[in-house]
């Protein structure tokens, strides 16, 4: 039997590269926040250097992400309706509550963690001390940092659950509708966040011991991604899971998809080997490849998934960005993130951040001004 489609409609991607940016940034933020908690909320001193970088990633990507999300709405001015008409059967509606809670709690947690440092800067005799007095709200106590951190961690888990579920429930797209997808989003989120922490470590810290620790953590996360990927393929090929088989069948015949699969496997395997073999010298390379892998995974899932027709034949265009318009979302959000990163490293005494002292007692004795 041979079928030739002679007339068919072509469907453009309805979720734009902005959506890829959103899912990328929010996953990095949520996973980074979780990695900041041992050092900065639970008081594990050995984890502090890593936690400081993790919090930096969580705050900067966490603020950028919802802006990318807003830009993906075709009616961004109506965003307030999310809060007015929450449809409880829609994961997106729940997300509209989870995301602001998460970002708010994360920013509040970061502020609380840095409050003593901000306060100290406000006490010094220099030109901008007024700014830091204002930023510290005139005090140094931060006993509330720990509960804030734990609440932010819970919100981060909700964000990971909802972002995974929102995409997973779409039965109409076989590539999205696999039970592994939420786990793969989370695991590649850790990969991307650790990649970004490695790059920031190279730029801001240059401590081989920290680099090695981050690389080992990255290797572990990449290992999880590889196991999930292998299990995905095994389930699909064996026919044990019809959903996985359908997902594979929807793209398997196309050479471009075979190349994507190979590309994905290489961008997991290379940093994995490098991070294990030479953990204290490869941070730049493993970090950049890891960021790329986490981003590429989402581009492939979202844009590639939308390139698969639901009833027609062949593939649609979505895999390649449609000109500068599509890329503006990517460039714009990275620009905003860079701006936030510069602001964070400039105005926040992030190298001094540590877990609050136990109880409600201030971490540093508050001095009156």
């Amino acid at each position, binding site marked *: 039997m041979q079928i030739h489609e002679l007339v068919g409609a072509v469907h453009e991607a309805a979720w734009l590269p902005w959506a890829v940016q959103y899912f990328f940034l929010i996953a990095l933020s949520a996973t980074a926040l979780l990695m900041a908690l041992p050092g900065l909320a639970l008081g594990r001193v050995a984890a502090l250097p890593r936690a400081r970088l993790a919090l930096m990633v969580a705050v900067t990507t966490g603020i950028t992400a919802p802006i990318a999300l807003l830009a993906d709405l075709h009616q961004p001015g109506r965003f307030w309706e999310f809060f007015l008409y929450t449809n409880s059967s829609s994961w997106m509606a729940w997300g509209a509550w989870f995301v602001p809670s998460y970002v708010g709690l994360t920013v509040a947690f970061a502020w609380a963690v840095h409050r003593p440092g901000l306060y100290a800067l406000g006490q010094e005799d220099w030109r901008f001390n007024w700014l830091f007095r204002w930023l510290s709200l005139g005090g140094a106590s931060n006993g509330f940092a720990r509960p804030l951190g734990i609440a932010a961690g819970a919100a981060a888990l909700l964000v990971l659950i909802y972002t995974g579920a929102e995409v997973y429930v779409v039965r109409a797209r076989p590539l999205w509708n696999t039970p592994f997808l939420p786990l793969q989003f989370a695991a590649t989120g850790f990969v991307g966040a650790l990649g970004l922490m490695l790059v920031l470590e190279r730029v801001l810290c240059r401590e081989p011991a920290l680099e090695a620790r981050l690389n080992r953590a990255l290797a572990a996360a990449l290992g999880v991604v590889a196991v999930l990927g292998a299990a995905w393929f095994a389930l699909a090929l064996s026919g044990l899971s019809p959903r996985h088989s359908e997902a594979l069948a929807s793209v398997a015949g196309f050479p471009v998809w075979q190349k994507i699969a190979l590309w994905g496997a290489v961008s997991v395997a290379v940093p994995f080997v490098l991070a294990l073999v030479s953990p204290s010298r490869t941070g730049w390379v493993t970090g950049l490849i890891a960021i790329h892998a986490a981003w590429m995974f989402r581009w492939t899932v979202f844009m590639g998934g939308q390139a698969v027709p639901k009833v027609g034949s062949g*593939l649609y265009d979505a895999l390649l960005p449609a000109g500068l318009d599509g890329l503006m979302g990517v460039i714009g959000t990275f620009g905003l993130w860079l701006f936030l990163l510069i602001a964070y490293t400039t105005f926040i005494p992030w190298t001094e951040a540590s877990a609050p002292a136990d109880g409600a007692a201030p971490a540093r004795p508050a001095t009156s001004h």
Partner: protein
Amino acid sequence: MDTNRRGFLGAMGRVTIGAAASMAGAGQSAQAATDQPHIPHWGMVVDLRKCIGCQACTVACIMENDVPEDSFRTHVSVYEVLKEGGDPAMVMLPRLCNHCDDPPCVPVCPVEATFKLETGEVVVDNTKCVGCAYCVQACPYDARFINHETQTADKCTFCFHRTSAGLLPACVETCVGGARNFGDLNDPESEVSRMLRENEVSVLRPEMHTNPNVYYIGLDAVLDGRVAGEAAYRPPLTVEPEPHGLAAEPQPHGEDA
């Protein structure tokens, strides 16, 4: 008013007796004796044996509903099907929203901007829609799109504005071959109900359990899902070498951009 265009013209005499007896309410006459107000459940039966692939419905829908360029609320897919030992056959497949009874597009909408009417149509309130396109993703039939003039979700409405005025949907009204039949599935006397009783019918993607209200007579099972064939449109990334060593001949491009 359940009929196709030819039947509709034949019934004109009956229908125009009184403007007060709206065509949309024609089914009510059968129920006049009972106290319960009759609520129609609109559906469509497409007789593929009669479709000639002229795309008159595609054009009529665009004109009637101001559908922007490059988008379609309905179109007719055309396939050349070659079965073992047979001659190639041209097969037409009009596609539109199925106004599913279990529509996956509705529960995902975060702001309840899309919903199912009592009479069966699945519609979008475009003054409320935030344009998140979640419903576009969730529809298993690619029946929805983002209208870039309104920046909201758009789809076939079963021509609600026309049926409320007692008219047939534009695509049915204009169907040259009389392939598209529209009517009240709740009325056992209606033409569409009779067609469902007397013919073997199928729906698109039954495995999705959406319970469509668009039925097809004469639909080949190889076309009822994602059609595994050579596409009319091949984006640069997916061009493959011809499997049989034949030179790739340019495919006639229909309405694809």
